[in-house]
């Protein structure tokens, strides 16, 4: 029943999106190591298929909100790599003029509502975005992403209850990467099938192979249709994996190197898609190399931009605390 058309997305577009996230995050990791990025920096490497697939099946105006592992969500939303990277380095050309950092970036224009640092807070906030959609009768759906760690927060269930009670157009995308910081899901959750966490509230949910962009898109379409058709919320549990530590300061000693290698070699979302593209024969190895070069250039430019952009003027310390005009 979508009144606004879905975008037409080719495998090549998906590949580009995922590769951009991968290369961007690798570069962010480097810049962190060089001291250009401070504080917390949570990389999305390994999970690229989730946001890429969901983004491909959204329609114009659908909103996205997530936690602090947010760089990938911003890049697929169409936010400029330069602006995102410059925010990571705390510079004036960053999306928040250097005042937000890795975990706090927003683009109202691109319908990206953050970037939230408190585990689980984005779930009621995203439900509130859906509330606004229903209030305005605008046919849009809000996507609230959160991790397996956040799935145990109390406020998530308060939001689930109201979302179903009021049949709000929201899709909850649980990115289950198996570890809430250093604690495996088995050690943190009494039940580990997170897709069923809405069953007390009559919210349907399915588990999805979050390492396969096609599977993500297929499940995403169904979930968005469900929410857009007035049936209320839907839960997608994306089974995924992060290759890096929880944040840059995490050596990830709580899991074996074999476990990580097995995921990288046999389940990598980018390699899987690459093989499909080559099988289809639309693009050959050279074509893919060309894409790779394009992406590397975008990322290198962003890194350079982010290092050269000046720090915010000291006067910025006291701006943006209050809006003075009356609405």
């Amino acid at each position, binding site marked *: 029943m979508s009144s606004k058309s879905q975008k037409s997305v080719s495998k090549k577009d998906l590949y580009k999106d995922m590769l951009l996230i991968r290369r961007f995050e690798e570069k962010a990791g480097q810049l962190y190591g060089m001291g250009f990025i401070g504080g917390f920096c949570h990389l999305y490497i390994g999970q690229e298929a989730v946001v890429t697939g969901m983004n491909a099946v959204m329609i114009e105006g659908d909103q996205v909100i997530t936690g602090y592992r947010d760089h990938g969500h911003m890049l697929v939303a169409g936010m400029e790599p330069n602006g995102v990277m410059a925010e990571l380095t705390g510079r004036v050309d960053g999306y928040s003029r250097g005042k937000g950092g890795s975990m706090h970036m*927003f683009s109202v224009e691109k319908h990206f509502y953050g970037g939230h*640092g*408190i585990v689980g807070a984005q779930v009621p906030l995203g*439900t509130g*975005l859906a*509330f606004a959609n229903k209030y305005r009768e605008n046919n849009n759906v809000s996507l609230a992403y959160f991790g397996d760690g956040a799935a145990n927060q109390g406020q998530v269930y308060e939001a689930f209850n109201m979302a179903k009670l009021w049949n709000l157009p929201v899709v909850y995308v649980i990115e289950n990467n198996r570890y809430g910081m250093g604690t495996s899901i088995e050690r943190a959750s009494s039940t580990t099938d997170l897709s069923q966490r809405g069953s007390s509230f009559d919210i349907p949910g399915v588990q999805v192979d979050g390492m396969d962009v096609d599977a993500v898109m297929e499940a995403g379409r169904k979930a968005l249709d469900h929410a857009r058709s007035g049936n209320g919320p839907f839960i997608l549990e994306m089974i995924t994996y992060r290759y890096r530590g929880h944040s840059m300061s995490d050596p990830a000693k709580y899991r074996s190197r074999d476990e990580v290698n097995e995921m990288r070699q046999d389940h990598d979302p980018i390699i899987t898609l690459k093989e499909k593209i080559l099988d289809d024969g639309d693009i050959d190895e050279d074509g893919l190399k060309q894409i790779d070069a394009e992406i590397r250039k975008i990322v290198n430019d962003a890194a350079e931009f982010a290092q050269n952009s000046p720090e915010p003027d000291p006067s910025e310390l006291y*701006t*943006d605390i*209050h*809006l003075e005009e009356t609405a």
Partner: protein
Amino acid sequence: MPIEVLMPALSPTMEKGNLAKWHVTEGDEVNSGDVIAEIETDKATMEVESVDEGTIGKILIEEGSMDVAVNTPIAIILSEGEDAETAITEASIVATETVETSVAETVAANEEPAPLTNQVEMTVREALRDAMAEEMRLDDKVFVMGEEVAEYQGAYKVTQGLLDEFGKKRVIDTPITEYGFAGIACGAGMAGLKPIVEFMTFNFAMQAIDHIINSAAKTLYMSGGQMRCPVVFRGANGVASRVGAQHSQDYSAWYASVPGLKVLAPYSASDAKGLLKAAIKDPNPVVFLENEILYGKSFPVPDTDDHIIPIGKANIRQQGSDVTIVSYSRGIEYVENADVELKEMGISAEIIDLRTLRPLDMETVLASVRKTNRLVVVEEGWPICSIGSEICSSVTNLAFDELDAPPLKVSGADVPMPYAANLEALALPTTNQIVDAVKKVTYTT
């Protein structure tokens, strides 16, 4: 012995009510538990049951009587062989005392500043309701959500009538999940709507304080000015009556310390209305601290839909020359009670109602201190890191040479609120404490 049936209180803060209906007449036999009358306030209606058995000897307050003070005898029940006349004489003494109290209250209310436009008398509760209704008529992005705000008409009846006028799309009953619905309101605010969140009391907003501070207050800054979160968080704050430690405390200092929030705490109905309208129009998140005990208090309010009080401006309620007394919310009531004694002593106090706690109007406070050279701050809240602490610190920094005495604060006791009536009274600022503080700073013996 004849039994007096007393006007009951529907809540700990009810002071008076209407006797809507008698179900019995003089001479009727009644048993314990029989419904004998109906009483009502602007919040609720309740049936009065007989507490004993006997004969209705005399009805002392007629059906339809308005504003009957709580604990006024309304009827006499006689046991066998008892005579009505003796009982009435005793009862009338109590009734007279009650009348005197309400006269004193009227005098205090008359000391409002001179009206500029036509004024109508209304309660703080009605003023708040009218402010919301007027703003909802002007802007369809404004909606109200909270526990019992719609069908129940508000736990304290502040949202009375809003559901009828605006419907369930804009007046929304929530489950008892403050954290969740505060977050939903913030999300709706980020998406461009103008939510008003009613917390039944601010004690329960502790469950939601993460969203008030982390989601609402910081968003504009963290987004480099891109995203706003214009939510009004309102509800009863401060010390209530006999509800114990978890339901009785003042959060003023907590919220007033947070950059990104505006924090309002009005006393009068006029300020309540004008400031709530300003809060709803404001593009920033606003914490609006009401007071349960003030809800039923009446004040003159300008008779216009356009009555807006600017945020960030204190009000000089009374000009004076000997001492500046600063307070806010119900603290003003304590100050004005104490002022009666100060006047008798010949001390002229300048009384400032802060009305806004963030941003604080230090200009008005400093100008007054430069005139009186003495400062006392009165607050219900705890004394450590309080609004009073902040004002005393600022005045000491900015007007040290103007002071003729160290500034003093009269605060609530530094303890969780006790339940026992005598202890509760000891935990609150008293007239004596305020008078003593003024005597100290004015070196009056």
